[in-house]
């Protein structure tokens, strides 16, 4: 077992020293667009793109400088300034892990920026849209680059905010507003976990900075309840961000946002932050057979199945893709739970997934664009002739995700599956099953959309999207084709990441084997799934309205009753509790006070009746008082 390299303080300036520009550019863009407001309407989108590209360039340069360094020097901490004096600094950690994310975020991000120019062309609020996109990129970069948990947390919530703003971008649609709120709140549940996790980390190791943590852990390998607690709490956080069970419910609603958002945030980057967190906190999920690590894998496996099942039943193309996103992240989680052996594949799949899923989402967007924002696949059909480019790119993405041999997904996903089968057989075979289902629902999607005969609304006359939208598709699909192989074959990615996340001992070093049982089984199952899909949706007539379907179908359509569960478990009791609390506050606490006041008032009202106005009564009171006084005195005197 080869543990991660020491983190060194970056002293020399250079590109790494200036890496903060990566964050600064998009942040600046967002600030300008938001502050200057309408003034920038004309060129706002261009600025947004420029900023995103600029930060991509910085990322690339930083990357080049980093790989220029010897392997054991590839973890550079850049201290920016003192954040909370004596407790936390603001700083960046440039290492293979963070830089890979940075490249993915800025790269795919820039493509999606470009795509959005076309997609949002007719939206009066396009400028605001780009400001949010920039804000997101900045926050996401802070998340992955920060060199301590506080910085990470700031980015973490920052992307949450961006996602909230973008899901609710069309806030005048109540559904969008609700979805946005839901996403934020569910995420906050996860954040609670992350927060408490940070408490315990600080209490146990007296630091939240990765470098010091590394040192501490190197000194005394952690163990015991605290670590388990930390692991599980971080996992909770990861579940929130990455829409893993049980916090998955927000992701499907999140599709209310404009499609580029779904592509960038809810497919390619933000939702993978959970995976990043787990990998980055590898030390707390060690050894791989520890409870918390196992929990990660189990969550992953469960979610990959759940997502896949949901994906099978959705007629809304974006929701279908969302389901598949859940499922794919499930794979990554599964991988990440396996420890150093799985990290490379998890990250690899994360990257490739970033490409092909973004590719498909944008493709879907392009389709919707053509079909005046129709999302119901039952109203598509036979589109391949009308929008060839979109079709081709989407099809490539499709092949990649189902793991068609030699495409990206084939390498990365299989890597996860085989490692899983090797270390956690049960989960592994579940993953295989999941792959099969993936084959089914993705094929279903493709067939319903591009094949068969048209089932369009009357006023629909589809057309290919403009170049500004198709070019990103093309670039992404290229990535979807080759990236996987490049990263996995000869463990390129694994070796690159090793300094950051450690690497398995040589004995366990996976060798890519195309004819392993698991691999073949996967392929077979995928083929079966695809074939079944062809039978049901390719060849056969697709009814314009969804048939009632079996219980299983409803189960899947209703997102496995996730919302129903939340509603009956949290929302209703919550509302009841709130109503009670308000009542208690008004009647109980405040009532007590007002009651006291009223009591005194009443006493006064009654007592004043004693003042009868009869002089003789007063005289009596005097005599009475005198007697009292005398009595009392005699009493006291004789005590």
């Amino acid at each position, binding site marked *: 077992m080869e543990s991660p390299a020491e983190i060194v303080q970056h002293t020399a300036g250079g590109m790494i020293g200036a890496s903060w520009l990566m964050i600064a550019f998009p942040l600046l863009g967002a600030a300008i667009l938001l502050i200057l407001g309408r003034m920038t309407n004309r060129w706002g989108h261009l600025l947004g793109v420029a900023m995103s590209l600029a930060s991509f360039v910085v990322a690339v340069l930083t990357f080049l400088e980093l790989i220029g360094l010897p392997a054991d020097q590839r973890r550079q901490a850049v201290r920016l300034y003192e954040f909370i004096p004596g407790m936390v600094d603001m700083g960046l950690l440039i290492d293979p892990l963070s830089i890979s994310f940075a490249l993915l975020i800025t790269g795919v991000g820039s493509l999606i920026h470009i795509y959005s120019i076309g997609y949002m062309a007719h939206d009066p609020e396009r400028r605001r849209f780009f400001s949010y996109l920039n804000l997101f990129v900045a926050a996401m970069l802070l998340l992955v680059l920060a060199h301590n948990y506080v910085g990470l947390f700031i980015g973490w919530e920052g992307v949450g905010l961006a996602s909230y703003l973008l899901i609710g971008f069309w806030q005048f649609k109540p559904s969008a507003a609700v979805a946005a709120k839901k996403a934020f709140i569910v995420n906050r549940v996860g954040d609670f976990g992350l927060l408490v996790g940070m408490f315990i980390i600080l209490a146990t190791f007296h630091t939240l900075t990765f470098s010091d943590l590394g040192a501490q852990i190197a000194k005394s390998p952690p163990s015991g309840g605290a670590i388990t607690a930390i692991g599980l709490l971080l996992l909770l956080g990861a579940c929130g961000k990455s829409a893993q069970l049980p916090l998955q419910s927000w992701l499907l609603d999140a599709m209310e946002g404009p499609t580029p958002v779904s592509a960038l945030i809810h497919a390619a980057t933000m939702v993978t932050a959970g995976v990043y967190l787990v990998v980055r906190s590898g030390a707390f999920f060690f050894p791989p057979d520890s409870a918390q690590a196992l929990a990660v894998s189990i969550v992953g496996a469960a979610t990959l199945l759940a997502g896949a099942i949901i994906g099978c039943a959705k007629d809304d193309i974006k929701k279908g893709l969302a389901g598949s996103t859940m499922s794919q992240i499930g794979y990554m989680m599964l991988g990440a739970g396996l420890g150093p052996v799985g990290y490379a594949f998890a990250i690899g799949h994360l990257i490739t997934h970033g490409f092909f899923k973004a590719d498909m989402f944008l493709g879907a967007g392009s389709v919707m664009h053509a079909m005046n924002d129709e999302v119901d696949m039952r109203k598509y059909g036979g589109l391949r002739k009308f929008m060839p480019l979109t079709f081709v790119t989407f099809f490539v993405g499709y092949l990649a995700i189902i793991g068609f041999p030699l495409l990206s997904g084939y390498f990365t996903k299989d890597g996860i599956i085989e490692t899983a089968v090797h270390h956690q057989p049960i989960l592994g075979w579940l993953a295989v099953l999941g792959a099969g289902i993936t084959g089914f629902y993705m094929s279903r999607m493709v067939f319903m959309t591009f094949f068969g005969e048209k089932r369009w609304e009357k006023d629909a006359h589809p057309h290919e999207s403009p170049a500004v939208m198709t070019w990103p598709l093309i670039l992404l699909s290229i990535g979807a084709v080759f990236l996987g192989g490049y990263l996995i074959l000869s463990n390129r990615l694994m070796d690159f990441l090793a300094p950051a996340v450690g690497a398995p001992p040589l004995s366990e070093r996976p060798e890519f084997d195309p004819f392993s049982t698991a691999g073949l089984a996967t392929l077979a199952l995928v083929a079966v799934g695809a074939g079944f899909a062809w039978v049901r949706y390719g060849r056969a007539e697709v009814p314009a309205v969804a048939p009632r379907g079996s219980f299983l179908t409803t189960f899947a359509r209703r997102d496995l009753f996730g919302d129903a569960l939340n509603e009956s478990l949290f929302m209703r009791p919550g509302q009841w509790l709130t109503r009670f609390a308000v009542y208690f506050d008004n009647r109980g606490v405040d009532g007590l006070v007002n009651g006291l006041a009223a009591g005194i008032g009443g006493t006064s009202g009654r007592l*004043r*009746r004693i*003042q*009868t*106005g*009869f*002089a*003789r009564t007063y*005289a*009596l009171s005097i*005599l009475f008082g005198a007697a009292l006084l005398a009595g009392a005195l005699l009493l006291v005197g004789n005590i």
Partner: protein
Amino acid sequence: MTTHYLVLSGLLFAIGAMGVLIRRNAIVVFMCVELMLNACNLAFVAFARQNGNLEGQIIAFFVMVVAAAEVVVGLAIIVTIFRTRRSASVDDANLLKY
């Protein structure tokens, strides 16, 4: 010896006080107050005798003077009330209450 006088004065005082409480006519009430004062006088004189000094007796004279003054003021007030209300009942005058 003195005790008898004291008891008597006490009785007088009590009678006076009772009178104030139970009689309605302002004049009578006032007379009862005078009675109480005289009870005091009796007590003073008695104690003067007991203590063997004259202060008590002197005080008695002062009290009489004061009582006389009170009579003047008191009657004046009561008469005006009577003129306005055509009644000297203490209980009729209870506009001021609560």
